[in-house]
């Protein structure tokens, strides 16, 4: 049992759930510290949203326990969603179209007195920088403003944990970065503990303090963004996170003949540490594809070898493809051994 005195905002233990006979969550474990933003990152269909719904109480898990702010909400006892004190921001915001912005924000404050309620609504409007918008209706607001109303509405009852389902998926790329910065500063101000779900790595890196990579109903790895990128826990994580070239010792020998890899297993070779030289005796090249991202080139080299077909690397300048026939590879770091 988790310790109620700990500084955990949320502790999920051994959570399992099957929907119509299909296991969706398999003994999932997750913890969230106070004031932290945690990203549940995973491909679609891995069960991310299901985890959120279990925490919120919109779904009842088959086994396992959920503790919010030291209080057991699912497990031996089950507390209905309306009593869990959890904020939820839905993908399409689910603002009530027949209520004004102020009425939307005040909806979860029915226990407060009239004046306290008005005060809190005002406070929340200011928090999300929408002071003066209280009398508008949701359809009169832009998409970004609507999201901030949804945020204010969810934060107004001072929830122990805030859950967000794909919060940035409806916002175009230009606005997204600005929204994230705004949200982040609001979260710091209000000391919000939050879990958000996304399938986009960029959003996870930009917004989360910690990331939980979710694959096939379970947390495959939990850690800080840097840790995930440099030290993936499994080949599956490395591939989903696109950490770099995952090679066996034999495959690595093809590229780096002088490298002594004593342990068998999968090794991570990060693209940014790979260098090449065009020579007469290296590995024969079949094709080179280069994609410019605005800062550097992502290079995908197809080589003529039975054991290894492709190598990914990064280059500061465009390679002149026609001239290259054979390449020598160098690795300027120690490769990371992925422990299975």
């Amino acid at each position: 049992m988790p310790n109620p005195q700990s500084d955990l905002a949320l502790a999920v233990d051994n959570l399992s759930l099957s929907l119509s006979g299909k296991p969706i969550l398999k003994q999932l474990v997750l913890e969230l510290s106070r004031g932290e933003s945690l990203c549940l990152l995973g491909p679609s269909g891995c069960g991310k949203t299901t985890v959120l719904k279990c925490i919120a109480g919109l779904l009842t898990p088959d086994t396992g326990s959920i503790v919010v702010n030291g209080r057991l909400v699912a497990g031996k006892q089950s507390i209905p969603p309306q009593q869990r004190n959890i904020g939820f921001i839905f993908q399409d915001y689910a603002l009530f179209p027949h209520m004004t912005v102020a009425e939307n924000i005040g909806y979860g404050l029915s226990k407060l007195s009239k004046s306290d309620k008005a005060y809190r609504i005002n406070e929340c409007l200011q928090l999300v920088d929408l002071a003066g918008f209280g009398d508008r209706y949701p359809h009169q607001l832009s998409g970004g403003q609507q999201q901030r109303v949804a945020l204010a509405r969810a934060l107004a009852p001072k929830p122990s944990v805030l859950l967000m389902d794909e919060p940035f998926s409806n916002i175009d790329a230009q606005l997204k970065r600005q929204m994230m910065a705004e949200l982040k500063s609001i979260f710091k101000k209000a000391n919000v503990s939050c879990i958000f779900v996304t399938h986009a790595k960029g959003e996870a890196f930009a917004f989360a303090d910690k990331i939980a990579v979710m694959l096939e109903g379970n947390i495959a790895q939990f850690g800080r963004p840097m840790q995930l990128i440099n030290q993936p826990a499994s080949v599956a994580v490395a591939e989903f996170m696109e950490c770099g070239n995952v090679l066996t010792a034999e495959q690595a020998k093809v590229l780096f003949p002088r490298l002594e890899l004593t342990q068998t297993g999968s090794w991570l070779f990060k693209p940014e540490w790979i260098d090449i030289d065009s020579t007469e005796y290296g590995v024969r090249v079949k094709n080179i594809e280069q994609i410019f991202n605005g800062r550097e080139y992502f290079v995908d080299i197809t080589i003529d070898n039975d054991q290894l077909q492709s190598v990914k690397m990064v280059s500061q300048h465009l390679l002149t493809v026609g001239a290259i026939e054979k390449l020598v590879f160098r690795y300027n770091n120690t490769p990371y051994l992925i422990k299975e």
Partner: protein
Amino acid sequence: MNNKRYRFNFLTRSPHNTYGRAFAFLKGLTTVGTLLLILPALSLIYLVITSTFSGEVDDSFNEIKATVLNHYILNSLLVMLGSVAVALVLAVPTAWWCSRYQFKGRKLLQVLLILPLAMPAYVSGYIYTELLDFAGPIQRWLRLTFEWQRPSDYWFFDVRSVSGACIMLALALYPYLFLLLTNAFSKQSPQMTAAAQMLGASRRRIFWTVQLPLVRPALVIGCSLIAMEALADFGTVQLFAVSTLTTAIYDAWLVYGSLLTAAKLSLMMLLLVLGILWIEKLSRRQQQYFTEKSATDVSDRAEPTTKQLCIIWGYALTVLGSALLLPVGYLFLFVLDYWHQNTQSQLWQHLLSSIGLAVIAASVASIIALVWNQEQRITLSKLSSIKLSLSSLGYVIPGTVLAIGLLIPLGSADLMLNRLLIQFDLPRVGLILSGSVFALIMAYVVRFSAIANGSVQSAYEQIPRHQDDAARMLGASRFKVFKDINLPQLRPAVFTAFLLVFIECIKELPASLLLRPFDFETLSTYVYQYASDEQLEHAALGALLIIAVSMLPLLLLHRQNKGVS
């Protein structure tokens, strides 16, 4: 409508002078036709205004105004509001259960609960009178059991009253609200409910503050439909001797013989209808903000507990039983008991003439729908879309009012025609327009064109305009495009339009009662005559026929709605 999208389409929007003579004829035809279709409404206004300015003394209207007019208006309003109130009680819970709960037989229940729409309210009214009257089986049993003697010994609900009329009308009309509400409740995003739940609201609070307000547009549209139908009702209130504006119009013409009085009362009624329409329009405008994109996934429906299941079925079967099963069962009993009277009557002859009229009216309405919509498609002009909306106007005019509105111009036309014939020493033709089936057919066309228009218009919108352009680029004339490209794709919609109008014509009562020629009956006037002579037993087969015919479009409607349910 879609004008903006096709603004740059050079083929569908060419300069007017390239349309040619045939098209000028088409435009003239639709203009004249539209004027004919709005003639009843115009005539009412014209007659009332001219008589006011000419200072014509209208004794019968003054008499009504001094004595019973307020009472009539009050009754009309009471019947209207009462029917809406009862319909709400019947429709809201049933619609809620059918859209938010998952239980065995839900889909069947959903279809069954729509069917009472086929029940003419005066037929149920007649049967409940039989059942609940002083001489009826229930009161007889009560008197026997409790040994009461006279009516003064006990209180019993009087069906033949305003509240009785409200209940009968609500039992026949609640399906409108039920249909709209099930649709709206099912389309409601489950996230709305979840969001409210996450903010700490109880189930009860969510229902009253989120789920019910979100279906407000459907609620208002359904209620205004019911209000309009209840206001326009003639059969039930006349049967129950509840005097309303509709019965007053009927009496003004047939008893007092004053067309002007009838016209004045009709105009009042039209104003009431306009009021309802205005409220409805306001709520339609709001609807765009209320509709949700997401459809309910099945898992969102709750499983009812056994207790809830008992309540659901108990309530739904009570509604269904009293609105449909009991009256229909009674009619079957009548048919069996009075088999001879039912089959040896003139029923078949009236059925045939009814079908004849309905076929003609439905054909005309379908052709109007095709021609008017085709013009709108070719020109995309404001004028043609105005013509299209004007031609649908008749649907909101109550049958009684429409009949009076038609009698005014057709009567004067007959008068003029006969004078003209006398001048040329020709034999007079009498009331060839106002006193023949012509008036009846015109009334049907005016009243039900909107149904055909709606069906054909939505089918037209399904056909991309680029198909027309492609055919034109391949050398087809406009007529060929219509014949070879559009018409084949419109065929199902035209068939639906024909069928719907046909059925409405068979059911139509108030206008038919006022306009039918001497010694002529339609199926519904025949059944109604028997009901008002307290002999429905002998026309029960006719009533069953009307109900059976009316059920056809409901099943059709259900098939179209299947995607939603």
